[in-house]
């Protein structure tokens, strides 16, 4: 895979930051500066400032409609797919604003993978699901090895090693979601974004995904959106609480970042009253 990565043309700035990364000098992966996201006239998220640290699990929590998923999809420019959506402010990835004119969203998504709320395996074999990404990026050799490693990292290998050529759709929901994680890992991303990855799964499958997230954090930087506060508490190092803010004068509503900090602190000793109310279950 390092061969494949070399093939990908990086601009010099990114190469530098990757070198820094290898030396472990740069601990901040993402830095958000006054980020607002609009759909047409509707401002989904307003004025977010935050930094995401390397090899940590960062959880986004908050009530429905607070824009946490929208913000997550801005990290790998998946919002580009939604017409009339626009991002203002800057989201820098290792120092480079991913919304700069000269940035190719395809290159962004190669490094910043995503796992969706509903498991969405391709209607192909398990093997083909995992091999799709690397093959697309020009990898021709060692595909078997990549598939095996990825499935092992996603804690799915033992369950599927004897049926790699059967359809991915024959797997259970939880297995499908781990396959989607394996698929994301196979392209050797730097960051994995997860949009409520366990919300469509049963408790046991959810637990497996949570364990997986902790394991994966040794290799990857993970940002996870969740509705489940216990889940955030169990898996994340840092938690960001988002809330819906109503502007009485203008009559508009928008998602805002209320509080962001180490998960243990946010859940035991929140600074903001709203955060405290939310984690106690008073609203949301």
């Amino acid at each position, binding site marked *: 895979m390092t061969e494949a990565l070399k093939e990908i043309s990086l601009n010099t700035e990114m190469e530098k930051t990757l070198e820094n990364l290898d030396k472990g000098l740069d601990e901040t992966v993402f830095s958000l500066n006054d980020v607002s996201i609009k759909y047409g006239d509707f401002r989904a998220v307003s004025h977010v400032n935050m930094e995401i640290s390397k090899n940590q699990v960062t959880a986004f929590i908050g009530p429905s409609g607070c824009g946490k998923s929208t913000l997550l999809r801005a990290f790998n420019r998946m919002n580009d*797919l939604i017409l009339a959506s626009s991002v203002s402010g800057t989201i820098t990835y290792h120092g480079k604003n991913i919304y700069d004119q000269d940035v190719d969203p*395809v290159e962004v*998504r190669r490094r910043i993978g*995503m796992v969706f709320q509903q498991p*969405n395996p391709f209607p192909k074999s398990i093997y083909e699901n995992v091999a799709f990404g690397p093959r*697309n990026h020009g990898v021709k050799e060692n595909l078997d090895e990549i598939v095996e490693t990825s499935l092992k990292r996603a804690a799915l290998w033992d369950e599927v090693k004897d049926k790699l050529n059967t359809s991915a759709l024959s797997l259970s929901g939880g297995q499908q979601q781990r396959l*989607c994680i394996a698929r*994301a890992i196979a*392209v050797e991303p730097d960051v994995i974004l997860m949009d409520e990855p366990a919300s469509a799964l049963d408790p046991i499958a959810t637990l497996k995904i949570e364990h997986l997230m902790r394991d994966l954090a040794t290799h990857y930087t993970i940002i996870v959106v969740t509705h489940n506060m216990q889940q955030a508490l169990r898996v994340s190092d840092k938690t960001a609480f988002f809330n819906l803010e109503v502007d009485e004068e203008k009559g508009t509503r928008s998602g805002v970042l209320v509080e962001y900090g180490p998960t243990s602190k946010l859940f035991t000793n929140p600074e903001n009253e709203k955060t405290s109310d939310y984690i106690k279950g008073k609203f949301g």
Partner: protein
Amino acid sequence: MKILSSPLSTTTDIANALKTSNSRNLKERLFQSFLLLSTLIALFILMVLLIDIMYQGFGRLNLDFLTDYTSRRASRTGIRTGLTGTLSLMVLVALIAFPIGVGAAIYLECFAPKNWFTKFMQVNIANLAGVPSVVYGLLAAALFAYILNFGRSLLTGALALVLLILPVIIVAGREAIKAVSPSIYQGALALGATPWQAVYKQVLPVAMPGILTGTILALSRAIGEAAPILVAGAVFSRRADNEPWNIFEPFGALPVQIFDFVKRPQPEFQIEVAAAGIIVMLVVLLIMNSAAIILRNRYSK
């Protein structure tokens, strides 16, 4: 509605309220009989047609009929030129119409900007599917035969049919692509695939059975058409030199050939030979439609 409108106190009230009403029952049965009758009428007419054709033409049908050229004598005539003409027409039409139609469908569904022009185009393509087929024949004759100088030829005939079925293929293709879950497209993009890679490698394979079914059905409609290819260059073949080996030459085709048989003065031609020709064409159509069904079933698993 009685149950909802009046309060029920006793068990007899409830028993009465739940009873089937006779008038409603009657209406229900009348309506169902009407539906059954409609089905039977359609089926009956089709059966009469088929039996009549079979009765008249079956005796005339043999291998020689397929391999012989047309003759002035009914006992010796065959439909070789019509059959070969129609088969090559079909291949040519498929080769030209499929890539263009699928390309247009992919563009409109996946890449076209969502503005008034795209919408205008979409509405027009849907409308084009309703244009009478002879109009396409005339257009092809004017554009391809004379302006582009292809002459009245197999190519011009094929292009006339391409024009005829393109709207159908585009509409069917768009529907098939639209039916693929957007999560597949997004999933591919999230793995760093380019939009084209996502469409070509993930969305299209899923949509392909639907696209193929639509294309085959459109094709089978096209090869039954006589009017557009008559204008564009199909000939009543009475000689041996109208085999479709040169796409710039006039050609024979089954519907045109059948039309020619019916027009001849001898009753043997009008009845037996024409019926035999129709059977051959029906078999070709049946094979194509079966192919569409098999494709659909194989991929929909």
